[in-house]
């Protein structure tokens, strides 16, 4: 990532701590991180590591007990800019059924822009545009309960994109999906990367990390590691202690690397590994 000016929009956490009411420990502790425009950041951690809390802190649904969360220099705790923050940060939750409000697809996508008071004709343009991005063109009048899991999740993402946010926060977007659904959502994330949308996605699937520019691992509310995906996948002890498992393919890759096999920088797909083997 090239150098960015100080006044470029970005998401920042400065020493953020948050404790749920009645909880014995803070969910998030003195957390500091930064998401730059157009960057994809993966937040990993076992269940209970604080990663979902992080997602809700980004757009101000939860406010830090101490520290500061800011989006494009707007403090999330500032009530006067609350709705600006929320329109710039689209949040997509784990269970798509918990987010779909409309009785048909296009009505649900329109929900966000309608709340922002966008004009009818412009809403139409946005709906068609985001449905094309998520690959649901033609589904405008479909009722949501007739969609597959992957389609529902892409609909939820479309609903967030329709507000034209600078950032997208995805909380375990593939958790409820089968492999076909997962692939379609991960492919969508790749397409969004090309669009310049900054994405923060939370997951416990280590394999998803290959779609990110940077990754951080949370353990009991603190940052245990931060770096590129390939650096992360090499850190087996840190991962194990944080309750994460290195996927089998990456274990093959690291065993081959450790033996001295010249492999391009990873993480690699099956084809790339075999390609390197045959040369």
């Amino acid at each position, binding site marked *: 990532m090239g150098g960015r000016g100080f006044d470029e929009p970005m998401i920042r956490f400065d020493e953020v701590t948050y404790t749920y009411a009645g909880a014995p420990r803070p969910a998030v502790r003195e957390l500091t991180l930064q998401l730059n425009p157009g960057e994809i950041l993966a937040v990993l951690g076992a269940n209970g590591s604080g990663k979902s809390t992080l997602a*809700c802190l980004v*757009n101000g*649904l939860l406010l830090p007990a101490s520290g500061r969360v800011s989006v494009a220099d707007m403090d999330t705790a500032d009530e006067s800019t609350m*709705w600006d923050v*929320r*329109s710039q*940060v*689209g*949040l997509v*939750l784990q*269970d798509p*059924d*918990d*987010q*779909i*409000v*409309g*009785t*048909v697809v*296009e*009505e649900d996508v*329109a*929900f*966000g*822009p*309608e*709340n*922002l*008071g*966008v*004009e*009818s004709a412009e*809403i*139409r343009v946005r*709906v068609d545009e985001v449905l094309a991005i998520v690959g649901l063109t033609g589904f405008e009048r479909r*009722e*949501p*309960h007739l969609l597959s899991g992957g389609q529902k999740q892409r609909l*939820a993402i479309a*609903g*967030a994109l329709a*507000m034209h946010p600078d950032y997208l926060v995805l909380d375990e977007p593939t958790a409820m999906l089968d492999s076909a659904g997962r692939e379609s959502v991960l492919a969508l994330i790749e397409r969004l990367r090309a669009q310049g949308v900054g994405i923060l996605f939370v997951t416990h699937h280590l394999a998803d990390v290959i779609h990110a520019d940077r990754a951080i691992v949370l353990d009991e509310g603190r940052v245990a590691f931060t770096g590129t995906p390939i650096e992360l996948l090499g850190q087996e002890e840190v991962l194990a202690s944080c309750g994460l498992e290195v996927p089998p393919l990456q274990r093959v890759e690291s065993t081959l690397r450790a033996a001295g096999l010249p492999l391009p920088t990873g993480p690699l797909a099956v084809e790339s590994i075999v390609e390197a083997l045959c040369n």
Partner: protein
Amino acid sequence: MGIVFAYAITLFMVDGFAGMALVAVLAGLAIRASRVPVRLVLRGLRAVLFILMFTLLAHAIRINPATVALVRLGPIAIDPDGLRTGAFFAARIVLLVLGTSLLTLTTTPVQLTDALERIMRPLARFRVPTGEIAMMLTVALRFIPTTAEEAEKIVVAQTARGARFDRGGPVARARAYVPVLVPLFVNLFRRADELAIAMESRCYRGGLGRTRLNQSVMTGVDWAILVGGVTIFVINGVLL
């Protein structure tokens, strides 16, 4: 939608066959205007066929009447006055069902809630949260199929654990559904919380200032039927 309300009220205000005939004409026109196949509209009557027969016979049949009968079969007779009354009530039911069938066949849930919101708008002056109510209705409608699916899944899962829903008297049967209703409601409440988070994240802040993707528009035909309906309402109330 307002038309349907007025339609229904009119039907109950009508006293004689003449008024009924007028309403029938209006219904016929509305059906033509909607371009819904008559077959589909009439299908709605199938559900109430039993009630219709029952109404007719309940009024028409007399045991040992004093007045002149049309037909006699031992003590059971068909009384012409009763038959007329029965026919009247039956006709009212028919027209009522036709009207509401037409409504559900031509209107999407969104249009229904839209119309409800429009009708309720005057209430906003009295601080009634009409926009929010309309939103609640939309969301409720949206979740009906999803909730039905969940309920079915839970019933099947509990059946697999040996639960029986067909045994015992009414109290026992009601109790048998506790293992289904409790998780269903717990999930619904949890879902409501998550939905609220999702809606707030998408900047929902109540009904004010919201625009709409699809604005509903009254066409000429809509106006004609509206005017026709109001006219009949007036005629019935004032003249008949």
